[in-house]
């Protein structure tokens, strides 16, 4: 019974880990960089939803959609202003490129946190639940209907994104670029448009996660730190750039954390993820699902 609930609640959270990691892994797939400002797009989503509903009196669903749009827009802007040099060769190759990517995305993360802090103040804004009642009973146990609904929406989005990647022309292009940039370029795939699309998707889904979790984690300037770190863990766990990996990794982490917190140590629960991350990086640097690439 208890075990079932642990797994269940673990999965509810895991879906979001998967969603956020997916956004990160898509970017890594085509640009081979880690977006250290990922969590801040989550933060923007959370604020967009909370502010639009609480301050502008907008209904929940349009507010969610606007959050997604904002996230997507932010993603596009980031791509235009900061990430484009990565594939127009303006920042050189190898180490120079890595360094550039880390500096600008990490700088962006610091910037967004402090910008929002300056504009909105530090006050945690609790996004309103999607549901009026704050708990319901399913198979003899109480759960927050908002959590259920949010996770359901998360799962749907997860499916939608996978469909886009696997099923549509644009998805095929994304995969092509991810597998072989030059090959893709030769067959006439426009890297710029693919990157823009991916950044938009990534921003959109992470912002949606932020919006859906706003009632649980609230919206405040550095709320993004926690989901960012979790998605780092998941992405590394699942293998950078691997979609299947990020989903399995996400669900896995959600459940593992729950078990760890309850049976190992509640106090140290947040370290489990990091320990896993370090172990995976050290023992299998390319993750559980990632494939290694030839270096020389």
């Amino acid at each position, binding site marked *: 019974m*208890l075990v079932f*609930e*642990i797994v269940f*609640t673990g999965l509810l*959270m895991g879906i979001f880990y998967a969603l956020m990691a997916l956004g990160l892994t898509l970017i890594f797939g085509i640009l081979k960089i880690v977006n250290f400002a990922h969590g801040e797009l989550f933060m923007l989503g959370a604020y967009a939803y909370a502010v639009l509903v609480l301050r502008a009196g907008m209904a929940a669903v349009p507010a969610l959609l606007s959050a997604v749009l904002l996230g997507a827009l932010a993603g596009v802007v980031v791509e235009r202003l900061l990430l484009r040099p990565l594939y127009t060769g303006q920042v050189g190759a190898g180490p120079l490129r890595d360094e550039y990517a880390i500096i600008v995305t990490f700088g962006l993360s610091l910037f967004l946190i402090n910008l929002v*802090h300056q504009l909105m*103040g*530090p*006050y*945690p804004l*609790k996004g309103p639940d999607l549901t009026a*009642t*704050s*708990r319901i*009973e399913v198979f003899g*146990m*109480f*759960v*927050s209907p908002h*959590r259920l609904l949010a996770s359901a929406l998360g799962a749907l989005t997860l499916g939608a994104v996978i469909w886009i990647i696997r099923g549509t022309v644009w998805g095929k292009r994304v995969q092509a670029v991810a597998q072989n940039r030059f090959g893709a370029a030769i067959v006439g795939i426009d890297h710029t448009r693919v990157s823009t699309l991916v950044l938009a998707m990534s921003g959109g889904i992470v912002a949606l996660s932020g919006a859906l979790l706003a009632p*649980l*984690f*609230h919206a*405040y300037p*550095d*709320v993004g730190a*926690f989901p960012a770190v979790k998605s780092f863990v998941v992405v590394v766990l699942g293998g950078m750039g691997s979609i299947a990996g990020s989903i399995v990794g996400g669900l896995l982490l959600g459940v593992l*954390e*729950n078990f760890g*917190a*309850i049976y190992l140590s*509640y*106090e140290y*629960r947040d370290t489990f993820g990091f320990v896993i991350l370090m172990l995976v990086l050290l023992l299998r640097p390319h993750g559980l699902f990632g494939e290694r690439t030839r270096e020389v």
Partner: protein
Amino acid sequence: MITRRWLMMVGLGLWVGSAVTVDAQETIKIGAPIAMSPPGSVAQGKEVRDGLTIAQEMLNKGGGVLGKKIEILYEDHQGIPEKGRAAVEKLITRDKVVAITGEHASSVTLADIDVAHRYNIPLVNTNAWSDAVRLKGYPQVFNRSNYNTRVAEAMADVIARMKVKNVVAFAENTDYGTGQAEAMKKALAKVAPDVKFTSRVLDRAAKDFTPAVLPLKADRPDMIVTIMIPPASYVLMNQLYENGIAPSKQTWLYDGAGVADYPEFWDNVKDAGVGLVSFGLYHPKVALTKLGKDVREAYMAKEKREPNRLIFQAADSLFLLADAMTRARSTEADAVIKALRDTRFEGVLGVITFDKEPGIYFQQWKNIPFVTYQLTAKGQQLPDTLLVQGPGIELAVDKLMRPAR
């Protein structure tokens, strides 16, 4: 090229443009290190600030103190000891404040008073409950604040009278939280040794306490005590409710942090708050002094709502300093400290004096009044809550109502 040169201008301009500072005229400067941003309790910070402002306006309207207007300088410590230490250092060395007040977070206060002690600046503690603050025995520090032992004993008394057997306490990872959990353990051992009391420390920065509350589903306690400050306490209460643990038919929810009267309480907890039993330091049904009435009036006029205990504590803190300075006819540290020591001042809730015996009562308002009440309906405001104990009101646990399920 143009762009780059332009960007350089901006880049360098940023520094030039920012070397501005302002200067004020002759006032009595008092420093208030409070939390204006997370992880500190911003809610508390704001209440304290409002309370200080009310008192400041009242004092200045009456011609100020020693003929000078009172100026309060606020510094944000984010509820972080390190930042608090820096803030007080700054207030004393840069702004040359003559006194410090407004403290509302024990961990930070413990760092703050070290600095006040080092520079010998009087400090009136507004709301830092940890006994450790008193145990340091600094002559500069005076406590208008409530203290953990007081709460612990009061709550232990209630728990004993409610005849619950199995109590689980969730305490935040601060001096306040861990300290009160300890004190409660001691107090219970005295008045109700047969009660099984277990406490668990929670990280106030955490947002999802589900893993901490899930195990309670396996064996349900008779009562859950929360020793946490918002926003963490709100999150915990919600998740206790969502998971059907408390408040419930089997399990009481008893708040030891006195958060039920915060203005944003209901926006954050909704159904989870119905049935909550709360320790408090003020209830509108409790008689106010003349000063108290004035403060209440001023606050109501401004905020259009009942003041809560933090407003009163903060106001008192400033009045105490003003009173001491007036009696000392100076703002010079030693004189003010001496004056504070023999304080006999009618504050908002009664006459305040500071105990001299070393230990947890050192320079503490020992008999600070407290109340116990229950929230019986969603969105219920303080005046309508069910008061079961207070100054002159004998504790009546049988009045408390149990949630339906």
